């Protein structure tokens, strides 16, 4: 992001999928992996059924014991319990594994689709949305979803199946046995709804505040020298204390939610057990139930609370996971920004006619720019920051279409070229110097993966980077970027330029592409680059005046228009703003001016 354009416009948030879209997606996944899903659910149900025989058999054991039975009968029943236990064990093993395979498969597909969607985002959206929103989707949302898919979804699924089957088992003991369970439905429903309205947001805020706290600690640590230099110790410590205060407030909020929800829920869990004992006991006294029925029902009641608790406990995680899913799916919902007309450019000349542009309607930053570039020309753009140079640069590179007017190459508007064709025509390099995690070679060959080593070397040498690149521990195969060798910003800019050399479009827009390189080295680099780019059209947004001096023509951009346009000599002779600048650069009348 250079200059003030995108900031002034405010960030455009990326879309989030709507609830029906998420449901549609979930439906598609379920259908596409129907067999796996059925298998998983079926196995879990089988495991749950096997687990339900225990209390029932224990009940009949107790009936037997009460009415006098033989040790042999006890052995048989206990043997049966053991048998079902083994069945449950084996089935649980395969159910878990099936769930794992299913979940991991869905998760992998989802994140791969997300990244594919990101890589297809329209250029204008990439330029304007800022990376913050997308970064939080690629890191936090993917993590949240993984958590939900690995543990939340299977646990909830098992819990639902088990609960339903246990209710069935209760009904088999006696239809009346289900009644105590119904008593707790209303209070749990009320408190659960209350909790779910607040919890997901509360937990998100809690973790966001936690991240704030650790981020600002990291900032203090990272900027320790600045803190010392400017005497910011008390300010930074105060900042940490403030972060802690806010994090604590978020923690207290969720703690309060739990303090209401959990005791209520847990008291509800025991109520059916006590009720079953009471009513069952009274019923036994009246001879309506056997002791075995009472025992079995009581044990079922205790047993069913586990899965119910699981369902309630995971519900907020699932909701958070659902929100993350919506944000991941939303990326695919960005509409394309260019429509290819199919026309082929006739020639390489570029022409801008009455180009206007506003990021926000009504706040125009370019007010009618006309510019013609002949193939092979080198144009330098200079002007104060905020004048609109970078915006014009992006328009000339075909990243946005102008709000009014047109920019065409060989007669075809840039925004009507398919992206692949556009890249063959124009390319933009700006100050941004991202180094990808990978080898030096991988960082350079982006536009042409099939490039030979010799071509890569040539490209690096054109930007004065071959010497240091070969001096790296493993030469061009050295890992750089996030996990590898750290490059200086200047070296990163050189790599960006090397990519451009390899891409070899006929027109290049360089937006302060050498600004981070030491001024002395920058000039040498620009000259060697110019030699390689001989015959290419170059639009250089210049940072240093020597770039302007070396160009064929200079355009002075001020307040959204081209104020002066001509060769260096012409502009110096005219005595305008450029001439003033040039004079102060070299000193009035100093002999050195002529020597450069």
């Amino acid at each position: 992001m250079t200059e003030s354009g995108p900031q002034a416009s405010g960030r455009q948030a990326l879309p989030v999928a709507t609830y029906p879209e998420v449901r549609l997606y979930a439906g598609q996944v379920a259908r596409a992996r129907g067999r796996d899903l059925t298998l998983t659910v079926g196995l879990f149900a089988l495991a749950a059924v096997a687990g339900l025989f225990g209390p029932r058999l224990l009940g009949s054991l107790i009936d037997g014991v009460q009415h006098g039975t033989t040790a042999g009968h006890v052995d048989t029943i206990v043997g049966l319990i053991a048998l079902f236990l083994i069945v449950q064990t084996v089935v649980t093993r395969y159910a878990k594994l099936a769930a794992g395979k299913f979940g991991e498969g869905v998760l992998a597909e989802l994140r791969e689709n997300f990244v594919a969607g990101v890589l297809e985002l329209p250029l204008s959206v990439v330029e304007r949305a800022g990376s913050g929103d997308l970064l939080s989707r690629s890191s936090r949302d993917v993590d949240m979803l993984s958590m939900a898919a690995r543990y939340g979804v299977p646990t909830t699924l098992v819990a639902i199946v088990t609960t339903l089957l246990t209710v069935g088992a209760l009904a088999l003991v006696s239809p009346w046995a289900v009644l105590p369970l119904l008593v707790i439905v209303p209070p749990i429903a009320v408190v659960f709804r209350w909790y779910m309205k607040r919890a997901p947001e509360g937990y998100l805020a809690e973790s966001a505040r936690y991240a704030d706290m650790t981020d600002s600690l990291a900032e203090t640590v990272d900027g320790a020298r600045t803190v010392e230099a400017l005497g910011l110790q008390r300010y930074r410590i105060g900042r940490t204390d403030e972060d802690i205060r806010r994090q604590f407030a978020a923690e207290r909020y969720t703690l309060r939610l739990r303090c209401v929800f959990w005791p209520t829920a847990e008291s509800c869990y025991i109520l059916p057990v006590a009720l079953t004992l009471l009513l069952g006991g009274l019923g036994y006294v009246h001879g309506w139930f056997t002791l075995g029925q009472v025992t079995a029902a009581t044990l079922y009641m205790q047993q069913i609370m586990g899965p119910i608790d699981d369902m309630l406990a995971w519900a907020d995680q699932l909701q958070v996971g659902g929100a993350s899913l919506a944000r991941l799916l939303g990326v695919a919902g960005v509409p394309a920004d260019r429509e290819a007309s199919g026309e082929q450019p006739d020639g390489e000349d570029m022409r801008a006619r009455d180009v206007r542009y506003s990021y926000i309607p009504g706040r125009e930053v370019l007010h009618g720019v006309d510019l013609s570039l002949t193939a092979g020309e080198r144009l330098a753009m200079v002007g104060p920051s905020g004048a609109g140079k970078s915006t014009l640069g992006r328009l000339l590179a075909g990243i946005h279409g102008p709000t009014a007017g047109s920019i065409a190459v060989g007669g075809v508007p840039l925004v009507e070229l398919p992206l692949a064709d556009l890249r063959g025509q124009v390319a933009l390099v700006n100050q941004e110097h991202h180094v990808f995690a990978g080898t030096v070679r991988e960082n350079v060959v982006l536009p042409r993966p099939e490039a030979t080593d010799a071509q890569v070397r040539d490209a690096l040498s054109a930007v004065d980077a071959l010497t240091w690149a070969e001096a790296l521990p493993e030469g061009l195969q050295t890992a750089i970027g996030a996990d590898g060798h750290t490059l200086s910003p200047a070296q990163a800019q050189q790599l960006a330029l090397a990519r451009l050399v390899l891409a070899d479009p006929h027109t290049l827009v360089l937006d302060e592409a050498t600004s981070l390189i030491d001024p002395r080295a920058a000039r040498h680099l620009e000259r060697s680059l110019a030699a390689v780019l001989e015959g290419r059209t170059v639009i250089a947004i210049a940072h240093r005046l020597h770039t302007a001096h070396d160009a064929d023509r200079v355009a002075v951009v001020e307040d959204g228009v081209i104020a002066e346009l001509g060769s260096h000599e012409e502009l110096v002779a005219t005595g305008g703003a450029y001439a003033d600048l040039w004079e102060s650069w070299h000193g009035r009348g100093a002999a050195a001016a002529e020597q450069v």
Partner: protein
Amino acid sequence: MTLGAFWGVVWMVSQALMPAAIGKTIDAGVTAKDTAEIWRWSAVVLLLGCLTGLAGILRHRCAVTNWLTSAYRTVQLTARQATDLGATLPSRIATGDVVAIGTADTSSIGSTMDVSARFAGAVVSVVLVSVLLLSTEVRIGLTVLIGVPLIMALVGPLLKPMHRRQSEVRALQGKLTGRANDIVAGLRVLRGIGGEPEFAERYREQSQELRFAGVRVARVESVLESAQVLLPGLFVVGVTWLAARLAVSHDITTGQLVAFYGYAAFLVVPLRTITEAWGRLLRAHVAATKVVRVLALSHPLAETAGSQERAEGSGALVDEHSGLNLKPGSFTAVAAADPAEAIELADRLGRYRAAEGVTLDGVPLEAMPLGSLRRRVLVADNDARLFSGRLADGLAGAGAGAGAGVGAGAAVGVGADARADGMGRVTAALHTAAAEDIIEALPDGLDTTVSERGRSFSGGQQQRLRLARALLADPEVLLLVEPTSAVDAHTEARIAERLAAARAGRTTVVFTTSPLMLDRAERVVFLAGGRAAAEGRHRELLATVPAYRATVTREED
């Protein structure tokens, strides 16, 4: 802490007593057909359950409070330590280690607060259940007491491979997230110049790798899960069998049979807690050792600093080594043939490294307390960080008076005059740094919240904001290192014009090789080989010193 342990005990014990209460209901009430007893014991069951819920949440409250208190205390101490170590921090310890204290280590330490309360409850309830069992039926009691730890010991070995694979998955997940973030961060480059298919493919490969690692974890987890069904299950079956045999021969009652079944099922929980507590205490100990090690470090320069304190002087800075002599209130530009030399000299003059031979108003820097030296001499370089937060606060920084006076809503207890004055100083500094357009473009002006490290600003914008901040600090001696290297020529010319006036009467040095800057300085020193090789006006030096001309005009040959 004690309170937490108390609720932990109540919570566990109330659960431990549940099987007994249910057994009692069956024996004293149901089997005996005593309606009053049924009522009484059902009520006891209900109350025990409610007590569990209540004690559970109160225990949780204490645990959260203790956890947070210890975590916050650690973060606070780390932040204080980081500011104490200051510029020497990077050389003493990796920043990653310090940050890890704020995240992983604090939660390791904090979690002991949670686990210790449950640990207390677990120990008490195991003892209680043992007593209950042994006093009712010695044979079953012994079986349970020997059997449960045995089962724990059997499940234990399964946990290790699972933890190993889980951490393998976490590592892969971390790498994959890193890959996705890398794509997002470089998306402009990718979309601008190509290479998407390769990145999509590489991501897919890694994603599939994670997928299969995840399935491997699921495989181990599924074995563990089924072992957790089987082993305690078999144990419960064994106990039930013994108890049922005894019940048949009327050695125990039906209610006791049910109770034994309940105890056997319950005991797994406290025993698991005890093993968990052990592991966590070990990890917390490691974390605490790391924290203590960082907190024990001290600032080496502060230790050696002298005590010749002076609040304010005239700002005469002299360096014997380089021969640089800065008169009070002068404006000097230093052009270094080698950029590294400029940085080294600036660090010497500001005493970020050994500063032998450097004096301020005749006092050696090394004889001054570091705090007062930092207040009087400011080295503003391009490695300086912008901090997140409200922009006005970030600019005013240490100048608390100005900070309180700037912008809306911050002026409690500050008079309108002081506020206007603070505002005026900020406006003036922004003007000098040609940074007004940055503020104008922001939605909330000076009240805008700056993102982490000022990332939402471009390189040139960051540099101008850093300059404005340094000007606002208004030190007696200001050393600016390449303050305009990332701004365009037009803007640089403006800054160069305004800088000397803004610092009038205060000693100022600009390390730069830009002709626009050098031309505006009343005195230029050419630094070569670490020494002042020539000095004069920019144009004189251009005409008379070829090496100087080569440095500033970037001539080739």
